[in-house]
C-alpha cells in the first residue's frame, strides 16, 4: 500500500516539474564532470579507428586468415650482430635458409636490397640461397623499393614510378626462384596507414610490369577454393595490357577487382605475440594467426660471417608464411595505424594474414551503398515510429553499431562509415520533414502558430 501511495505522489507531479528535474540532473552530472566523460566517450566512439579496433577485437580473425610468423631484425638483433649499419645480406641469407628448413609455406623479405653504392656486388651467400631455394611456388618474395612515383590513392600511378636496381636483379631473372613484390600503402589524409595497394603497374612505353603485393600472391596461392596462382599471373598480365598497352581486357576470373587499393583488415599490432594472438583454423589445425621471433635467436653474425644458432625444429614454421623484416629504431620504418604505431614489417604481416579476405573483399558500387543505407534507414524509421525517444535511440544505437561492425568486415571500414553517415543523414532529414509535415497538417487544421509548440 505504501508503494502505491508513493507512486500516486509521483503521478501527481506535473509534466513540467519532471522536465525541470531531469534538466537539473543533467546539469549536476555536467558539473561533476559527466558531460566531459560523455563527450570523450562519444568522440572516442565516433572515431573511425575505434570502430576498426572494436571490430578487430569483436570479430576476431578475418575470414580464411593465413598464419604468419615475423622474424624481426630488432635492436637486440642489431646489437647482437655487432651493430652493422644495415642488415647484413649474409645474415639475411641464413635467415631465409632457416625459414625454409623450418617448413615455411612462403617467405617474404621486407628488406631493401638496393645498395647505396651502385657498385656494391651481390652477396654470394644470398645469391646461393636464392639459387638453391626449394620453395618454388610461391617463390621467395622480396619487397621491391621504388623511387619518385606517387602513391596517393587519389592519383594512382600519376607519375612514372621507378624501381631501384639491385645487384640481385640478374639472379632473379636467371633462376626464377625469387620474385619482386610491392608493398605500397597509400596514406590517408591524417597520415595513418589504412589501405594497401594490391598491385603496382609500371609502364615503359607500351611495355611494363605489374608487381603483386605479397598479400595478393598469398591470397592466390592459398585461396580456399584452390590454387589461383595461374589466374593471378593472367591478371597481372592484363594490368600491363590495360595500363601500358591501353587495351581493354575482359574482366579477370580472379581477383574480381578494378581498384588496386583495399582496406587493410588489421588483426594484430606490434605488441601481439603468440599468447595474445587470435587462433585460426588452417588446413584442419588450430594455430595462432601471428607469431614473432627476434632474428638473433636463429642466426649469429660475427666477423662478416653468418651461421645458424642451432638446428631449427622442422615444424617451427610449418604452414606459416614467414616475413623477415626490420623493426629496429635505426630503420625509421614505423607508421601510424588504427591499432597504434607499427613497424612496416608488422603492417605487411597483417596484410598477408588477412590476404584472402582483402583480395576478395567486394567493391560496393554507389548503388549498393545507397540501397544498404536506405534499408538501414527504413529499420531505424520503423523503430522511431513505434518507440518513445529513449528506447528508440538506444535500440537504433545498438543496430547502428552492429551494422557498422558487420559492414566494416564486408566492405571495409571506409565504406561502412560512409554508409552509416548516409543512413544517419537520411534519418535526421526524415525526422525533420516528419515534424514539418506535422506542423503543416496541424496548421491547416486550425491550430495556427500553436502547431509549432510541443503538446504534453
Amino acid at each position, binding site marked *: 500500500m505504501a508503494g502505491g501511495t508513493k507512486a500516486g505522489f509521483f503521478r501527481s507531479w506535473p509534466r513540467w516539474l519532471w522536465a525541470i528535474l531531469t534538466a537539473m540532473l543533467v546539469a549536476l552530472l555536467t558539473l561533476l564532470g559527466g558531460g566531459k566523460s560523455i563527450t570523450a566517450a562519444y568522440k572516442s566512439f565516433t572515431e573511425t579507428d575505434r570502430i576498426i579496433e572494436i571490430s578487430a577485437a569483436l570479430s576476431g580473425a578475418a575470414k580464411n586468415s593465413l598464419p604468419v610468423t615475423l622474424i624481426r631484425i630488432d635492436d637486440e638483433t642489431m646489437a647482437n650482430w655487432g651493430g652493422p649499419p644495415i642488415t647484413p645480406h649474409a645474415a639475411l641469407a641464413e635467415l631465409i635458409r632457416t625459414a625454409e628448413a623450418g617448413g615455411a609455406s612462403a617467405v617474404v623479405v621486407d628488406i631493401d636490397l638496393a645498395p647505396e653504392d651502385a657498385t656494391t656486388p651481390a652477396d654470394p651467400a644470398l645469391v646461393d640461397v636464392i639459387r638453391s631455394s626449394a620453395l618454388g611456388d610461391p617463390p621467395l618474395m622480396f619487397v621491391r623499393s621504388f623511387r619518385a612515383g606517387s602513391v596517393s590513392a587519389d592519383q594512382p600511378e600519376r607519375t612514372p614510378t621507378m624501381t631501384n636496381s639491385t645487384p640481385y636483379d640478374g639472379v632473379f631473372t636467371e633462376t626464377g626462384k625469387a620474385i619482386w613484390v610491392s608493398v605500397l600503402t597509400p596514406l590517408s589524409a591524417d597520415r595513418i596507414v589504412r589501405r594497401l595497394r594490391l598491385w603496382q603497374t609500371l609502364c615503359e612505353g607500351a611495355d611494363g610490369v605489374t608487381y603483386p603485393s605479397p598479400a595478393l600472391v598469398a591470397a592466390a596461392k592459398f585461396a580456399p577454393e584452390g590454387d589461383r596462382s595461374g589466374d593471378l599471373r593472367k591478371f597481372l598480365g592484363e594490368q600491363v595490357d590495360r595500363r601500358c598497352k591501353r587495351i581493354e581486357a575482359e574482366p579477370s576470373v580472379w581477383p574480381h577487382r578494378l581498384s588496386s587499393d583495399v582496406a587493410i583488415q588489421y588483426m594484430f599490432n606490434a605488441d601481439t605475440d603468440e599468447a595474445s594472438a587470435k587462433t585460426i583454423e588452417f588446413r584442419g589445425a588450430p594455430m595462432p594467426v601471428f607469431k614473432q621471433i627476434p632474428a638473433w635467436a636463429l642466426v649469429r653474425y660475427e666477423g662478416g660471417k653468418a651461421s645458424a644458432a642451432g638446428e631449427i625444429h622442422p615444424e617451427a614454421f610449418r604452414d606459416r608464411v614467414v616475413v623477415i623484416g626490420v623493426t629496429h629504431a635505426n630503420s625509421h620504418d614505423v607508421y601510424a595505424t588504427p591499432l597504434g604505431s607499427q613497424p612496416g614489417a608488422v603492417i605487411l604481416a597483417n596484410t598477408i594474414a588477412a590476404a584472402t579476405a582483402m583480395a576478395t573483399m567486394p567493391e560496393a558500387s554507389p548503388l549498393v551503398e545507397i540501397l544498404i543505407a536506405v534499408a538501414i534507414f527504413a529499420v531505424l524509421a520503423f523503430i522511431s515510429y513505434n518507440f518513445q525517444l529513449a528506447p528508440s535511440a538506444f535500440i537504433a544505437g545498438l543496430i547502428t553499431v*552492429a551494422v557498422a561492425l558487420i559492414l566494416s568486415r564486408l566492405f571495409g571500414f571506409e565504406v561502412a562509415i560512409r554508409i552509416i553517415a548516409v543512413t544517419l543523414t537520411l534519418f535526421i532529414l526524415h525526422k525533420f520533414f516528419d515534424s514539418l509535415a506535422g506542423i503543416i497538417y496541424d496548421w491547416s487544421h486550425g491550430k495556427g502558430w500553436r502547431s509549432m509548440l510541443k503538446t504534453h
Partner: protein
Amino acid sequence: MARILAYLLIMLGLLGTVAPMQAQDVRPAGYIMAYELKGTDAEKGTVVVRKGAELQPKLLMPIYDGDSVFIRDETSRITLSLAREGNLVVSGKLMRKDIAGEMASGDDSFTIIEQIVAILAGRGDDDSFSVLVSKGAETGEAIKVPFVVRGRNYILGGGEPVHLTWSGGEGPFSVQVATGKAVTHEARELTINVNMLAGAKFAVTITDARKRAVRIAFVVKKTLPKVPDKVRARDTNGEIAAVWLAGRDNGVWRFEAVRQLRALPQNETVAGLIAALEKGWLPRSK
C-alpha cells in the same frame, strides 16, 4: 511489439555470428630458444622427455605441459621461452625443468570484452611516440622538449650535468630552474649542474615570448634500476640496457637512457636509438 523485439534479437544475433568459433587444441607452454650441449649431453644429444621418449633439442621446438627439459652436464645450457615464466635457462644452477601449463590465446570472451572496454576508455591513444609539448597560445610553433615525459623524469645523480635542449617557441626564453631566479636568453638549450641543487626533486620551467610554457619535472636518483640478467646477457656495449631503461615505468627513465647512450661508443645503432628516442619513441616494457 514482441515481433519487433524478435527482429532486433535476430539483428543482434547476426553480430554474434561474426565472432569466430573458438578453436580447441593443446597449445604449447613455450619454446626452446637456444641450446648449447656439452660433454655427455653432446654425445647423447637428447634433453627433452616427452611421454617416455627422449628428444633432441631444436630451435623453436615447442615444449608442452608434462614435458621435462634436462641436462646431464652442468656446462650445457638450454634457454626456454615459457609463456608463464618468461625466459628460463636450464644450466648448472637448474638442471631439470618440469613444464606445466599452456600458452593463453586471444580468443576467450573475457579478453575480448576487456579489449573493447580498454578501447572505449581511450587505451587506443598511442603513447609510444610522445614528446613533451608546451601549452598556452595556440598560434605559432609550440615548445617541444625531446626525451622528457610528462610527470616525473628520473635522472642519475652525481654524474655529468644535465643538458636540456628544445625546439619551437619564440625567443627570448625565460628559464627557471627549481626555485631559482628566472633567467632570460635566446638559446634553446640549458645545462644544469644537478649537484648544485638542493633536494632530490627539481623542475625546469621554460616560457617563451608568447607566454607558452612547458614544465619538466626531474627526480634525482642515487642508482639505476637493476638490469635483468637476460638483458645483460645479450648486451654488447650497453645499448640494450639503455633501451630497456628507456621503456621502464612509462618512460620516466627515457632522459637518463639517452644520457647513457651518449656515453657509449657511437655507432649507427646508438645513433639510430637516440634519433628514435628524440622523435618520441618509447620502447614498450613487458
